[in-house]
């Protein structure tokens, strides 16, 4: 899916688990994009010690798998729990960003996040690390750009497109699972698999 010229107003990344092949190329490209060597995967991996952690995590319980990253929630628990105000939700785009200059690494946000998509920064600094929508690179998320099967895609917040054409109610695709994200609320189907 083309991700150039994204209008930053209220876009989110959604996953289609029926096409996720569990390769984790999204993780590899996320790591590379956030490393010192953005254009060189080999160097990014071989020269970074410790190996960076990706901000997208592929959850898997075969045959179901899908990439999961920060949902940039409407009512973000991490923002509420942040004691320094480092976690901020941009009022226009709705993206939740961690201001690293303010983060003190208390990890309250990691505890609070219902999706488990915040991690400790792998560079050893005491800051929280999570999906930032690749804003620093012009807002073209590396995971979406490099997914080999278009299993993650950009869509308007709250309006994920169903894959292919409308299926009949009750139809399941061949792998048997279906995942829906809800913007608000903590319960999601199919998300228990960790």
């Amino acid at each position, binding site marked *: 899916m083309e991700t150039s010229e994204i209008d930053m107003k209220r876009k989110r990344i959604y996953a289609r688990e*029926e*096409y*996720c*092949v*569990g*390769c*984790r*190329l999204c993780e*590899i*490209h996320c790591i590379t994009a956030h490393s010192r060597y953005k254009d060189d*995967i*080999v160097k990014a*991996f*071989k020269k970074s010690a410790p190996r960076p952690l990706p901000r997208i995590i592929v959850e898997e319980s*075969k*045959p179901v798998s899908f990439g999961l990253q920060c949902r940039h929630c409407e009512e973000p628990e991490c923002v509420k729990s942040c004691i320094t105000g480092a976690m901020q939700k941009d009022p226009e785009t709705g993206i939740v960003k961690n201001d690293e200059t303010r983060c003190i690494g208390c990890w309250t946000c990691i505890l609070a996040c219902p999706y488990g998509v915040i991690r400790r920064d792998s560079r050893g600094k005491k800051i929280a690390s999570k999906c930032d929508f690749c804003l620093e690179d012009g807002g073209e998320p590396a995971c979406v750009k*490099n997914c*080999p*099967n*278009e*299993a993650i895609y950009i869509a308007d917040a709250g309006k994920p497109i169903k*894959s*292919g*054409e409308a*299926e009949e109610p009750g*139809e399941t695709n*061949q*792998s*048997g699972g279906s995942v829906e994200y809800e913007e608000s609320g903590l319960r999601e189907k199919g998300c228990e698999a960790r």
Partner: protein
Amino acid sequence: MSLSYQTPEFIVERNRERCIDCQVCVRQCANKVHSFDEEEQKVVSDDSKCVDCQRCVCMCPTRALTIRRNPLEFRENANWTPQAIKDIYKQAETGGILLTGMGNDRPYPIYWDHILLNASQGTNPSIDPLREPMELKTLLGRKPEALKIENGRLAEKLPPQLELEIPIMFSAMSFGSISLNACESMARAAAELGIMCNTGEGGLHRKLRRYGKNTIVQVASGRFGVDADYLQTGAAVEIKIGQGAKPGIGGHLPGEKVGGEVSQTRMIPMGADAISPAPHHDIYSIEDLRQLIYSLKEATNYEKPVSVKIAAVHNAAAICSGIARAGADIIAIDGYRGGTGAAPTRIRDNVGIPVELALAAVDSRLRDEGIRSQVSLVCGGSIRNSADIIKAIALGADAVYIASSALIAMGCHMCQKCYTGKCNWGIATQDPDLTKRLNPDIAAKRLVNLLSAWSHEMKEMLGGMGINAIESLRGNRLMLRGIGLNGRELDVLGIKAAGE
């Protein structure tokens, strides 16, 4: 356990400078070639399981992998080739029939590559497809010998026709031999391109019924999935007498590939081997075929053309003459290079004849008997590019069927292991872990891209010949010349030699 003489066919070469041990290859190989050694903390490969499907090569983010033929060499022997020797080792160990997938890979001559096309020079202008209309629309079906006109109006309707925007259709590939995602991709592409897609002998999955207008439903010897609804849904019905990859025998789907969806669509028990009988057990002679053709016409109220598909064999011309007189509206001829999900190697490689020769012979024979208008001819097995299509039409075909080309467009790398059910590209498998790899959004687009590209190329070639409508190329043998062919071959093809 005694020593196995089978050695790896392929070697996996990993460039350690580039490998980042990301394990994408480990996760992606259905044959479990790659694994992560915890102790050494790196990815290692077991060459003996590699089938050269190249999934890992394509997926590797740093292009660290390549696959080579195992350079292990026997002493040179033009008669006992390595393949001949290895086949015997395999059979001595297993006692079984050698199975393979896709089409005949033997080095027999490819007649398409011995045929050259004309271009207009001087006495006749070539036509520029970018500036003039160039028509590829094709209608398949029985044509009357004359139109009945009364008072300047059509007095009698024509027999039912299939209308194709371009003379290419997706050939029969059963749901079961290929995944539902693959079937859906082709159905969607057919709808977008305005052409047809053939169900093969696996029936029509309920999810694909909405593409009925662009579907030819097949009635094969196993009659899988055939019921009244099935016949009504399709735009045409095809009786499969044979297929180019395995003339004389029926389809074979191992029980492992018969899961819930396949079972429901084919109307057979789960886990049961789906073995189609060699003949239709109600067609033992040409008059029986006539009976079935008309039964199907009755069942569909004479509203749909009925097609008959045969493998290209020795007396194809006489057989097709019989089929035309038996009432078929379309005849599909499948050459020996046709692909399959599973076939005994010896039958695939030794039975049948090239479709180029069969097509030429059938077209000439039907014209000699004055019955060419009674059927449309479709040929397949194998059509690899747009030049093959132009040559097929000039030899006499109305349209072509493509299958291997379509699968390659969707990701097939011709490893010929379809029968194992472990297709790493999500095509020839029912394993949900693998089928999800084929995203119909992507695959359908690739098919549309391929056929659109071919259409443009065909228009260029037609324009070069001074033709602006595909029907003026049909059977136009004077537009072809043979190169590197002997006199008999030129005669059978009905074309002159280059220079004449």
